[in-house]
């Protein structure tokens, strides 16, 4: 009997998710033992045409990482959906839009302008931009079309499960794979569609080892602006920590070394818009007497959009009015 087929794909992402899979270390051998790896561009030499040639639903499990921001990403999202029984949005970009989602405050044209013209290290007096099609003697070369709007995987295709994190933690990845392997071997039901796998059901605060007390913020600080204190809740120290609005599962790794949670595991159950929720939470604990003082404190938030929506802008309720 042939082994079930496994695929992994890298769309608009940094590559960290690919590395993260290797965080499962020697367990990767168990994956290879239980699955037939049929497509994994970063690790194996299969081509798109190999996938195109497969029957629908031939792949059992596809881990799709990265957001969808160009025509190639979108094509592959549709293709892998068609060929896979289980499509998993793997990592913050696929699940939430991730850091590429922050591009949604600009248009594609603006981004190109910045990269090819306004960039201080670029000299481009002739305004040469990459073109999507180019004729060469050997034939036509093409580049994917860059979209104005970056989308999470489930804004493009039907997604079965989510594994959050930037990147997902190794032990969590293995836990998910182990469960699936277990079900394949011993039978049993897969979790309900839409389940967030490889994460908890509370917030990062639940795993964070720091001591939490009542919070009253009189000013926001950056991590290097406060004396080293491994005990006190970072938020209580005035450092914006997304822990209270972020799903647990990472083990509180960032906060344990004095860095605030950035929110990569996405919102906890029951919360739709992670950034808006953080605003609501922070606004509740700002300690000020007057509107002027509140404004003064709020002005100390470094990069509000990038802080509150670092991973979640694409999926947030904030949508661009027009492009």
């Amino acid at each position, binding site marked *: 009997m042939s082994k079930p087929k496994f695929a992994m794909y890298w769309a608009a992402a940094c590559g960290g998710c690919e590395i993260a899979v290797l965080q499962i270390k020697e367990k990767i051998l168990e994956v290879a033992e239980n699955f037939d790896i049929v497509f994994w561009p970063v690790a194996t030499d299969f081509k798109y045409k190999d996938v195109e040639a497969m029957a629908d639903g031939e792949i059992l499990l596809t881990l799709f990482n990265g957001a969808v921001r160009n025509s190639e990403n979108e094509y592959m999202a549709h293709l892998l959906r068609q060929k896979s029984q289980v499509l998993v949005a793997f990592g913050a970009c696929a699940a939430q839009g991730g850091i590429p989602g922050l591009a949604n405050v600009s248009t594609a044209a603006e981004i190109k302008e910045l990269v090819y013209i306004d960039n201080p290290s670029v000299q481009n007096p002739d305004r040469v931009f990459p073109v999507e099609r180019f004729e060469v003697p050997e034939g036509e070369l093409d580049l994917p079309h860059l979209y104005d709007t970056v989308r999470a995987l489930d804004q493009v295709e039907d997604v079965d499960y989510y594994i959050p994190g930037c990147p997902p933690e190794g032990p969590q990845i293995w836990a998910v794979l182990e469960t699936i392997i277990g079900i394949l071997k011993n039978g049993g039901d897969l979790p309900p569609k839409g389940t967030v796998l490889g994460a908890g059901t509370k917030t990062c*605060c639940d795993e964070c080892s720091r001591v*939490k007390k*009542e919070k009253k913020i009189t000013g926001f600080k950056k991590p290097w602006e406060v004396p080293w204190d491994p005990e006190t*809740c970072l938020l209580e120290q005035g450092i914006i920590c997304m822990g209270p*609005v972020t799903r647990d599962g990472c083990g509180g790794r960032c906060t344990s070394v004095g860095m605030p949670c950035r929110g990569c595991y996405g919102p*906890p*159950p*029951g919360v739709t818009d992670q950034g808006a929720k953080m605003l609501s*939470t922070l606004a509740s604990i700002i300690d000020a007497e007057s509107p002027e003082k509140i404004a003064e404190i709020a002005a100390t938030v470094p990069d509000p959009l990038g802080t509150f929506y670092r991973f979640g802008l694409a999926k947030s309720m904030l949508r661009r009015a027009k492009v």
Partner: protein
Amino acid sequence: MAESTNGEPRIGVYVCDCGTNIAGKVDVPAVVEFAGSLPHVAVAREYKYMCSDPGQEIIQKDIKEMGIDRVVVAACSPTMHEPTFRKAVQSAGLNQFLFQMANIREHDSWVTEDPVEATEKAKHIIDAAVHRVVFQEPLEAIEVPMNSDVLVVGGGIAGIEAALKMADAGHTVHLVERDPSIGGHMAQFDKTFPTLDCSACILTPKMSAVGKHPNIKLHTYSEVTEVDGYVGNFKVKVNKKARYVDIDKCTGCMLCTEQCVVAKVPNEFNESLDNRRAAYIPFPQAVPLRATIDPERCLQLTRGKCKQTCVEACGPGAIDFEQKDELVELEVGAIIITTGYQTFDNERIARYGYGQLPDVISSLEFERISNASGPTGGEIVCKNGEKPRSVAILHCVGSRDENYNEYCSRVCCMYSLKFSHLIKEHLPETEVYQCYIDMRCFGKGYEEFYKRLMNEGVVFIRGRAAEVTAASKRQAETEGKLLVTVEDTLLGVVRHLPVDMVILSSALQAQPDAKEVAQLFGFGCSSAGFYIERHPKLEPVSTVTDGIFIAGCCQGPKDIPDTVAQAGAAAAGALALVDNRTVKIEPTISYIDPEKCSGCHICVGLCPHNAIVYDAELDAAQVIEAACKGCGVCVSACGSNVPVQRGFTDEQIFAEIEGALA
């Protein structure tokens, strides 16, 4: 009985005409027709007055006969009739929280001009209520046991009155007063307007009744530092400041005060017009009549070195320099706050010369000067000891003035009249000028008192005084006098009144720490610092925190009769609670599932009613049901939407929004 067979809700919608209040603007039949077409609506009806008995009976009949299991009444504001309809629904056997009110009067017919728009708006409002009521759940009021003891904070006339009322009713009353004696401002006054009763003569019997009452536990020289808990079960911490005198041993003989070597301590009770000793009893009728040693002035306590003549003089050996502040914990069912007021700092209006010109004095200083037990033995004299031949009384100092306090202090006109009378009584030849904006003599017998004063030769000048200056030495006839510049707005001339004494009728202001006190007890303060009552008309002595009442000038400037009336009302309010064995609490409160809570503590410090505690065992925040008021602060603050406010769940609110926008 017709019942819903498929588990689907059966909603009854009842649209009220409210006479012509609603039907005069809104096309009610069209609205009823629309309501009848909404999903799950089994019946929609119109009636002239839904709140009337026959109106309520329509609903009750439908519940019983048609199996209506959700009710929407489209009528007035829920503030008006929500309780009416809840009761009607409940008595027909349906849980009262399966009812929703749609306000198509205050929110619609009264405020919308176009009848077509008003009708459309009514449809949206009803649509919202119908969408919402589908998700409403039956809730039951929560019952908790009631502690029958009460706490009164502030021992002025309001606190004294409230404490006596409740103690007479058989309840143990803890009366906490910041100063060494109860009595408050009223103890400083000479006479009271308009009856000219001697203030001390009517107050001191009440003070001593407090001191002797078996049910009153008096905590003087003490302050509340912490309040926890909720109606029926407040836990209060009181700091009893060290007075360095064992009040059980002290007999109030005053020998220590006579022997104390520190003689030049400004006497607060006499507005610093004379001095007291470091060992002192604030005034002869003080309750308790016990000495206090001023820790800031006593040589032994400040320098650790003194002859200790007080200790020598004290027969019973009551003086104890080792005494420490003591924290007392009280448990009470209700609290009455009667923390009073302070008077306006006259020096803020520099042009009146207070603090610069010796004979420009405050109203409280005049109270003490004219008082027979005051620093001058009741002789009305200037600083040089001479009797003033002319006195100007300037009204509205710090009141009715956008630069200081916009409000009217309500008592200054009347006490100014009283001052005029007292001056005329002591010194019939002395000219008295009243510089006023308007005479506000609105109380019982007040206008009559004003008339009486007009016949006593007092000169009334309508105009706010511009300034008070020392008259030039070059003009012989006014030398040594104060010149009051005032525009007489009735004559249209600016006048310069040469007088010997100027009395500033200072505004009544909130206590300097009013905001902290309000925060401590969990209710609000106006921008002026006066405590905010739950309803200005119908609940003038209740606060937003159940079981906490306010009375007297801490709620706003008022005279003694109003203060005493409020104190009585607050006592009645508190008694109506603590006379019950249990207390019922609205169930529209927050709930935290410990399985979902991450224990981040964000909500714990935010709850304005101290209703959230962190349970270390569960590693989760927990709501004390009896303390929660359902304000929703925790709901919006929680990063993971764990707190659920019953009756206001996300599901219900989103459904309501959906309906409103449909």
